[in-house]
């Protein structure tokens, strides 16, 4: 239990700690962040981006997992691992690669490009965390659905998805987080005129650490808190089936 307690303690500590004495966390800095139109827009951009990227990745990742999850063939393993590959490559590399690619395609520095980039790095998490649960769905239930006239597709939606719902919510959270905290990739492909919150923090840390960092970080933590609570509420709704 020791390390766990410390971890829990620390996880509270991190939000407020930073390098600043507590006075750095007065509402003054929050005010400064909230009052600044640019930071506000960045906060909104980051939130929307993370939510959209997570949703898109969840959809793509879920479909890919459905195709891969229940197969025992070697190619399915190979593909599953292959989908993981963007996970291993440091994001600087992906960022640089995407930047070049975007320049070719003409979506460099656009929000679309940023979204696509985040989807690319989030999909592996989604796939990896769903693919296993899909493999474990009781095949009899899928058969029952087919038997009752559900097409392959309906079976996926009506039976598979609800049963792996918890994993899917987890995967969505993963994807959201990957986008929400992403710096290394976003630095390369973020729109020139609007950064995401982590990029903003990164920029602020370049030449000195100013209190905006603390306020922005704490704000992220609050957003996270609300989000986690919301999801917990959502996912509890149907935890009846036990």
């Amino acid at each position, binding site marked *: 239990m020791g390390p766990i307690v410390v*971890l829990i303690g620390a996880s509270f*500590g991190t939000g407020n700690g930073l390098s600043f004495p507590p006075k750095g966390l007065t509402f003054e800095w929050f005010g400064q962040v909230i009052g600044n139109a640019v930071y506000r827009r960045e906060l909104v951009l980051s939130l929307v981006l993370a939510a959209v990227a997570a949703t898109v990745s969840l959809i793509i990742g879920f479909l890919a997992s459905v195709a891969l999850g229940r197969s025992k063939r070697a190619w399915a393993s190979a593909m599953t691992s292959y989908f993981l590959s963007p996970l291993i490559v440091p994001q*600087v590399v992906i960022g640089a*690669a995407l930047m070049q690619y975007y320049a070719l395609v003409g979506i460099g520095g656009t929000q679309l490009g940023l979204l696509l980039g985040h989807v690319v790095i989030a999909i*592996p998490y989604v796939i990896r965390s769903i693919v296993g*649960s899909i493999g474990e769905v009781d095949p009899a239930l899928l058969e029952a659905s087919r038997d009752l006239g559900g097409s392959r597709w309906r079976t996926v939606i009506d039976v598979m998805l609800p049963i792996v719902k918890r994993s899917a919510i*987890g995967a969505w*959270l993963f994807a959201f987080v990957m986008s929400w905290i992403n710096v290394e990739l976003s630095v390369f492909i973020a729109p020139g005129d609007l950064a995401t*919150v982590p990029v903003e923090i990164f920029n602020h840390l370049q030449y000195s650490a100013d209190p905006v960092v603390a306020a922005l970080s704490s704000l992220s933590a609050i957003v996270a808190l609300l989000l986690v609570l919301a999801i917990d509420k959502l996912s509890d709704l149907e935890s009846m089936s*036990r």
Partner: protein
Amino acid sequence: MAVVVQSLISDHRLSFHWYEQLLGEDYYWIVLVRSIWLSFLSAAISIIVGYSLAYISSRLVVSRALRKLILIAVLTPLFTSAVVRAFGWQIVLGSDGIINDIFIGLGLVDAPMRLMFNQLGVIVGLVHFLVPFAYLTSSATLQSHDLSLVRAARDLGGGPWSTFWRITVPLSRTALIASFSINFALAISSYVVPAVLGGGRVKVMAALIYETFSVDLNWQLGSAIAVFVFVPVMIVLFSLEVLGRKTAIPTRSD
């Protein structure tokens, strides 16, 4: 999309020049081994911690409020940027940090221990970063388990501990493998945590790649190093995946 990225990366590999330079240099090999070792260790520890937490909260904690609290405590740090989080750890692990204060206060040690700016710090930081991921995956699987199996095990004389090890853990196998893959990959590609908590003195491959890209501005070599890391890690992940599927519980239609 992943395909596009990959092909782009290989685009850099116009000649084998960078590879020759890379493979001939012992230093890269040393750092590669170190990175894999650190990642392996952090992934393993984070899974133990994350899985235990998920188990405790989903099976042992009765109070809904406490469960919620654990969930929040585990997940919230995930949303703060890695840099800020690493700074937070300095407060805990620093020479004037909480842990040293406690140990000195209890008279267990006289002088502050070095808990960071070394490999230990890196591992602690990585584990903290990775635990929420393990937690999410684990609690999803734990909640989907058929509890009648646990009952059967208890009925057959298995104590809570033995039931945990012999029934609950094996039934979570798939999720644990998935979790390990994710955490291992996250650890190996993570750069900020080792930099800040390793005091810049625990070089990992991700840091070398970052330096090569961002400071040396040598994208070709950077990509080459990335591929150099990519290959062995991919082999590890692929083996895990194959192992996972091969040993999967057979179903009726097999």
